[in-house]
């Protein structure tokens, strides 16, 4: 195998110094001359009609420059999610939102917005807006929202009452026959919580309108190009007149801003249009919690049929997800739940039937894992139940049934690689799997247990959604490299990984000679953006192709210049070689070329394939049987990541996701009271893990080559929390013999289960 010079090396991140020095600019840091501050009035009701709204007093407050509500703002209907902007006919996008409407559908829904010379005055003005509401009945549960008692939250739902878009149906084999031929059948329903990304930088945008009508929006989006399309649609502008960019940093994402950031971009833009001045809208933490997309909670049912020897024979998976007041990613998340849930095990007869349902909760959209964690907690719980009933080791049962390359599955692309068996074996060794069931003595008050879960994911959203990338690699006149790609770096190391791909491919190994422009629609070609674990895999392929193109141009030019045959030439460490002989530095050649009217400009365009990453998670827990408290002692995450372009970045992705997965299993949840108010609307109330909660964590990278990705890389970003919750709940079962079918498994739930 070829030895790489840059790929696979954990070099210092390109953004490290700016971020640790505090000089890296984020959207919330942008101050423009004459800038106004926008604030939003939000609904106190979960469902109501606005009978009357009077903004006169607010408009008269000195310092206020504009007040918007449904009466004087655009009435173009849209969807904040990126994929609904690129829906391919004959499919129809679900468009169900205005910036402001005369009906509010959840506590936090936008009623009005103010632009003022400072934030304080803007807040005062909100208090002067007089609104009369006619409350309507509300529903917060996905099952109840489908009953005859519930109101229609949106009319025009052809798939069923309060069901946005379509019902997803995936099928292989003959399910009825599959269950008839099964020796054992398990059927269980699981309940999933609403959880939040809690990325550190809240939703934000700064919009500026030029005299010629073009708009520039500094934004916290993960997808600048599709976000520009959404804004162009809302304001009926040519896309070429809308510039969306990160400036360049983004304080986390985890899916919460694939498309618009809440509605920050749209509100800031309309206020800027009204006032002719730049407007900054920054959600406070409570607004971020209650008025930007959550993960879908809801219900998932698993029915698994097996043969007596443990071979899986039939699987029926059903889901009803709570998508809240607006659809956002409600259709796609339900789709991914099924597609991923069906694609871990080789099962000849399988069906998935799933959808989202509107309720009067905060809209649910994309969050890391995108439906997949909601599939795998139920599935991996049932697999453990089956293993126990069969008297089989749960690890062996999984090894027996997992998909292998070449197996038939429901996905429309082939499985070309799987390192899952290796992940399972290595992870099991690390956790001490053989001790499972043997960790406790009779009478122990603190009981220990070990559990595992496995899963897969995607490396982009092809062929489910429009998914393609373009990139440019330019060799500058001094021989340095400039990469331009429209993906973002929300902390995921994209800037560094793309630079490594370009550097290795061109043949320049000094990373100080490589720089990257990301996340700006003005300076990068169209790119779907950073979601679906795709930036390194898919944008990476475009950068790879662009770098190859630039390299070929250099070599062709060098051949002519050096009077050599092109195939004898190579670029190594910024020097052009003929065989083993260094002939001319890239810097000298590019300088010469620029003086002779030539630039090497590589273009990369890719419609990607897809590749499954694989993961096995193991947990060891301690349960205090007197208090119900669960403490995770150790987490092991063994991941097939394809080739790790930058191992430390990959580890960081996995460690961070693993801890989010631990929160999902044990503590994180947004609950609602009977008035539709979110009870967990701030960081202190929302129990996410802090530094003091972190168990021993061991990450294991397994790197089988996948032919489709750049240098064999696969998607990584989301895999890290897919099977974490079931690994932990299966460990809890091992410890105390109680099977939880609802997460988070809080202290209170454990205590009640122990002493009911």
């Amino acid at each position, binding site marked *: 195998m070829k030895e790489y010079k840059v790929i696979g090396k*954990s070099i*210092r*991140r390109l*953004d*490290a*110094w*700016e*971020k*640790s*020095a*505090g*000089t*890296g*600019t*984020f959207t*919330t*840091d942008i*101050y423009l001359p004459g800038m106004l501050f926008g604030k939003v009035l939000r609904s106190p009701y979960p469902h109501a009609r606005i009978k009357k709204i009077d903004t006169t007093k607010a408009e008269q407050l000195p310092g206020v420059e504009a007040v918007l509500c449904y009466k004087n703002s655009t009435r173009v209907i849209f969807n904040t999610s990126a994929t609904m902007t690129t829906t391919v006919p004959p499919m129809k996008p679900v468009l169900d939102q205005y910036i402001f409407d005369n009906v509010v559908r959840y506590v936090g829904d936008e009623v009005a917005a103010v632009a003022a010379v400072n934030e304080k005055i803007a807040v005062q003005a909100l208090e002067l807006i007089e609104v009369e509401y006619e409350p309507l009945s509300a529903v917060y549960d996905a099952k109840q929202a489908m009953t005859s008692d519930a109101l229609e939250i949106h009319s025009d739902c052809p798939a069923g009452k309060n069901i946005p878009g379509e019902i997803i149906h995936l099928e292989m084999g003959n399910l009825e026959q599959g269950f008839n031929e099964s020796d054992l059948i398990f059927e269980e329903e699981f309940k999933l919580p609403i959880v939040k*990304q*809690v*990325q*550190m*930088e*809240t939703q934000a945008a700064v919009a500026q309108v030029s005299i010629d009508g073009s708009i520039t929006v500094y934004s916290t989006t993960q997808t600048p190009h599709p976000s520009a399309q959404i804004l162009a649609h809302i304001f009926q502008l040519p896309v070429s007149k809308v510039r969306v960019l990160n400036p360049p*940093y*983004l*304080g*986390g*994402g*985890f899916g919460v801003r694939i498309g618009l950031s809440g509605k920050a971009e749209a509100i800031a833009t309309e206020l800027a249009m009204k006032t002719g001045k730049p407007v900054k809208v920054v959600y*406070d*933490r409570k607004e971020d919690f209650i008025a930007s997309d959550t993960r879908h909670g809801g219900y998932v049912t698993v029915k698994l049929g097996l043969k007596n020897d443990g071979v899986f024979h039939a699987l029926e998976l059903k889901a009803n997800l709570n998508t809240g007041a607006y659809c956002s990613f409600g259709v796609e998340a339900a789709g991914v739940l099924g597609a991923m849930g069906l694609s871990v095990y080789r099962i000849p007869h399988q069906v998935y039937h799933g959808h989202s349902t509107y309720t009067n909760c905060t809209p649910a959209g994309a969050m890391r894992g995108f439906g997949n964690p909601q599939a795998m907690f139920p599935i991996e719980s049932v697999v453990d139940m089956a293993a126990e009933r069969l008297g089989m080791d749960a690890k062996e049962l999984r090894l027996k049934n997992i998909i292998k390359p070449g197996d038939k599955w429901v996905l429309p692309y082939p499985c070309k690689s799987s390192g899952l068996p290796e992940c399972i074996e290595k992870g099991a060794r690390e956790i001490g799997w053989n001790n499972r069931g043997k960790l406790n003595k009779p009478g122990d008050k603190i009981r220990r247990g070990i559990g595992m879960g496995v899963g897969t994911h995607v490396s982009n959203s092809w062929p489910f959604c429009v998914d393609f990338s373009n990139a440019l690699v330019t060799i500058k006149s001094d021989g340095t490299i400039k990469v331009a790609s429209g993906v973002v770096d*929300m*902390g*995921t*190391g994209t800037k560094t990984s793309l630079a490594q791909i370009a550097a290795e491919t061109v043949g320049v190994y000094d990373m100080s000679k490589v720089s990257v422009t990301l996340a700006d629609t003005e300076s990068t070609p169209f790119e779907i953006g950073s979601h679906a674990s795709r930036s390194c895999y898919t944008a990476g392929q475009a950068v790879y192709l662009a770098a190859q193109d630039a390299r070929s141009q250099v070599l062709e030019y060098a051949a002519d210049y050096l009077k050599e045959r092109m195939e004898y030439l190579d670029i190594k460490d910024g020097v052009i070689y003929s065989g083993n002989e260094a002939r001319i530095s890239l810097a000298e050649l590019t300088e010469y070329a620029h003086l002779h009217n030539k630039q090497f400009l590589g273009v990369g365009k890719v419609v990607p394939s897809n590749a499954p990453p694989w993961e096995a998670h193991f947990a060891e827990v301690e349960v205090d049987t007197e208090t119900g408290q669960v403490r995770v002692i150790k987490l092991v995450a063994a991941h097939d990541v394809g080739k790790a372009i930058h191992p*430390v*970045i990959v*580890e*960081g992705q996995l*460690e*961070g*996701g*693993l*801890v*989010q997965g631990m929160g999902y299993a044990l503590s994180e949840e947004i609950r609602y009271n009977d008035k539709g108010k979110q009870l967990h609307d*701030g*960081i*202190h109330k929302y129990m*996410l*893990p*802090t*530094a*003091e909660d*972190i168990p021993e*964590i061991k990450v294991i990278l397994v790197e089988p080559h996948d032919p489709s990705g750049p240098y064999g890389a696969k998607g990584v970003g989301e895999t890290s929390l897919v099977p974490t919750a079931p690994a932990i709940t299966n460990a809890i079962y091992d410890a105390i013999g109680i099977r939880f079918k609802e997460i988070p498994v809080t202290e209170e739930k454990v205590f009640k289960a122990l002493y009911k």
Partner: protein
Amino acid sequence: MNKKNVKFTLNGKPVTLTVSPSATLLDIIRDELKLTGTKKGCGKGECGACTVIMDGIAVNSCLVPIMKVAGCHVETIEGIGNKEKPHPVQEAFMDLGAIQCGFCTPGMIMSSKALLDKTPDPNREQIREAISGNICRCTGYVKIEAAVQAAADKVKEENSK
């Protein structure tokens, strides 16, 4: 509005400002002085992104009324290292992959620096306690904890030379 004068030392230099007394230290640092390295993640003392060091103690600057800062020494992320010589904590964060999105990073570094200034040889519990008020949603804290440990080791090594 009654504005008042306040004097304090910021990153080693004396400053005198005319401020609205209801402002917080964070408001002044970010909105008036435009030192945007200190981040605002919640405005309620719940996330630690706005951590600065005040008279040797790491504080959430969003909870400190500006008039309380009179006469104090305040350090922000902009004041602890420079291009030629990053602070050892900054260096360790860069080298050990402790930085992802970077939004918690300045506050996290300030909490860590405050710890090492007082406790040059911290144990694991002390490190965790020192950063327990700083939320990071990207890293799972694993590489951050390792970086603080590495910075402590480096400071110790430099001091023993």
